[in-house]
């Protein structure tokens, strides 16, 4: 990166994207803080949680909810807040930021497409499926996905107009829809998406490229780790497993090769520990404590996301904001579940503090 490019980025970023960056930094201040979480943990009922959240940025979204609260309604309200924020950002974004924001939501879009496709294969009600879709991953033609009866139709009629088209055409053939396991399909698509996203941020370059590739490689590595962990003992072959790993990340390619052949947790561990950042993570983990791994990974992710706010003039903050909000929604859900199920002793297990 030449000095000139860097300077011009600093000079010109605010011309187009300065406003939105300011907005997103404003949104960031609305994220729940540690003291908020501490207060939420003290709540005795879901009503208390609602009352407390009304005092935060979620207020307008929760105020009109009728009284018998459920965890799902609570989570829905919080999601609505994120969606509203995101729509506002997207509507005001110019290029190439608009594309960047779209890229952030492709992951949800993949989930939605997979949901609808499998749902239709099993003849479920489309309306019901649409309600279950993540609102961030919605696109106009999504309802018409249900029309397609086989992969070729699906691709020809619907998907070709969506941004997901290349992922489908490059990785799946028409026979796959019926034969391949849906989870394998989902992860194949996700891998293609991550690769594409990585090359996109690389093209954008500058601080954005730098920061985003860091975040994305962490995401890719975490997925690789999770896939390995979850596929131990299943029928997934090593080659299949290898195909689901993204083509970048700190583990690429040697670490992934080791992960692909790992058969138990210790082998995974030794594969991961060859990479210095992950060695630190695994050293926090006692022997045999696989349960805590998820939480530690979440914490690591949150730490990286928060760090993106330290730098200015880049798009990473938007991605970070979305991920932080999602983590926050998960936290709220966890607290609400613990309160609703009278398991307050375990409330700390699921919360990942952001600030």
């Amino acid at each position, binding site marked *: 990166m030449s000095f000139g490019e860097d300077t011009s980025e600093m000079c010109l970023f605010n011309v187009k994207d300065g406003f939105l960056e300011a907005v997103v930094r404003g949104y960031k201040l609305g994220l729940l803080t540690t003291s908020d979480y501490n207060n939420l943990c003290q709540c005795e009922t879901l009503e208390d949680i609602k009352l407390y959240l009304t005092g935060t940025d979620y207020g307008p979204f929760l105020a009109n909810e009728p009284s018998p609260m459920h965890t799902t309604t609570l989570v829905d309200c919080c999601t609505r807040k994120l969606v509203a924020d995101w729509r506002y950002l997207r509507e005001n974004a110019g290029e190439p930021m608009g594309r960047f924001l779209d890229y952030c939501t492709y992951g949800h879009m993949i989930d939605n497409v997979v949901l609808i496709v*499998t749902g239709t294969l099993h003849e*479920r009600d489309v309306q019901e499926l649409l309600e279950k879709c993540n609102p961030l991953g919605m696109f106009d033609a999504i309802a018409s996905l249900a029309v397609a009866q086989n992969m070729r139709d699906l691709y020809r009629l619907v998907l070709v107009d969506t941004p997901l088209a290349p992922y489908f055409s490059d990785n799946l053939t028409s026979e796959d829809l019926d034969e391949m396991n849906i989870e394998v399909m989902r992860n194949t698509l996700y891998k293609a998406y991550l690769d594409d996203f990585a090359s996109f941020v690389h093209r954008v370059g500058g601080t954005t490229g730098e920061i985003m590739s860091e975040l994305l490689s962490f995401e890719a590595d975490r997925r690789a780790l999770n896939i390995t962990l979850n596929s131990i003992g299943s029928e997934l072959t090593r080659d299949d497993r290898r195909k689901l790993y993204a083509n970048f990340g700190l583990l690429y390619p040697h670490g992934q090769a080791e992960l692909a052949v790992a058969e138990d947790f210790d082998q995974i561990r030794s594969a991961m520990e060859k990479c210095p950042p992950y060695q630190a993570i695994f050293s926090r983990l006692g022997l045999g404590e696989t349960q805590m791994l998820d939480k530690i990974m979440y914490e690591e992710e949150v730490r990286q996301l928060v760090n993106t706010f330290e730098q200015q003039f880049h798009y990473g903050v938007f991605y970070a904001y979305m991920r932080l909000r999602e983590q926050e929604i998960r936290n709220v859900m966890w607290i609400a579940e613990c309160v609703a199920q009278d398991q307050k002793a375990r409330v700390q297990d699921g919360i990942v503090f952001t600030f």
Partner: protein
Amino acid sequence: MKARLAGATKGHSLLKKKADALNMRFRQILRKIVETKEEMGRVMKASFFSLAQAKYATGDFKHTVFDSIDQASLKVKASTDNVAGVRLPKFEAQREAGGAADSKIGLIGLGTGGKQIQECRKSFVTAVDLLVELASLQTAFLTLDEAIKTTNRRVNALEHVVKPRLENTIAYIKGELDELEREEFFRLKKVQGNKKKHTEAAEALEAAQRAKGGGAVGNGARENKAANVLAAEQDADIIF
């Protein structure tokens, strides 16, 4: 009649035994139900918590699970159990070793949270096992309850209605027979007394005639005739 009474008594004691047996089983089942219910509460709590954990890790995975399943892997088999002649329905959970379904479920949440989903599945399977057991116990409980009620009703009916009625009848018949006997005895006595009186009167008359010193022959014939009439009367009385 006596045979019927004996039958009733025997039936009563048998039914009583059955009722006792049923009651014993009933108590057993009741105890088991209480235990299972407590266990159920615990397991359900743990299951729902693990569901929450899985949701935390994966988001909403309900439809993914729905869509990857086409046949139940757990089936409930109904059979009957016999306790003292009462048929109790019994349910058993049967695991179908469906390779395809298992492998499909095994891959759910491959990207994130697969392990939590498996945990969740495991705990819910134990919950279902418990539920089936509880259902079996509950239906057995209800059927037994019904059976015990009818048995008790029968026992009570035998004890308080049939047996007293039979006893009453027997007592009445006995009383009636006694009375007949007594009447007969009395009548015999009376007849005997009458006979005695007549013979005494006849003897007195004869003695008086003999004392007169042999009266007129015609007189004697009349006396004879009168005696004959008396004798005929006496015959009729006996016949009667």
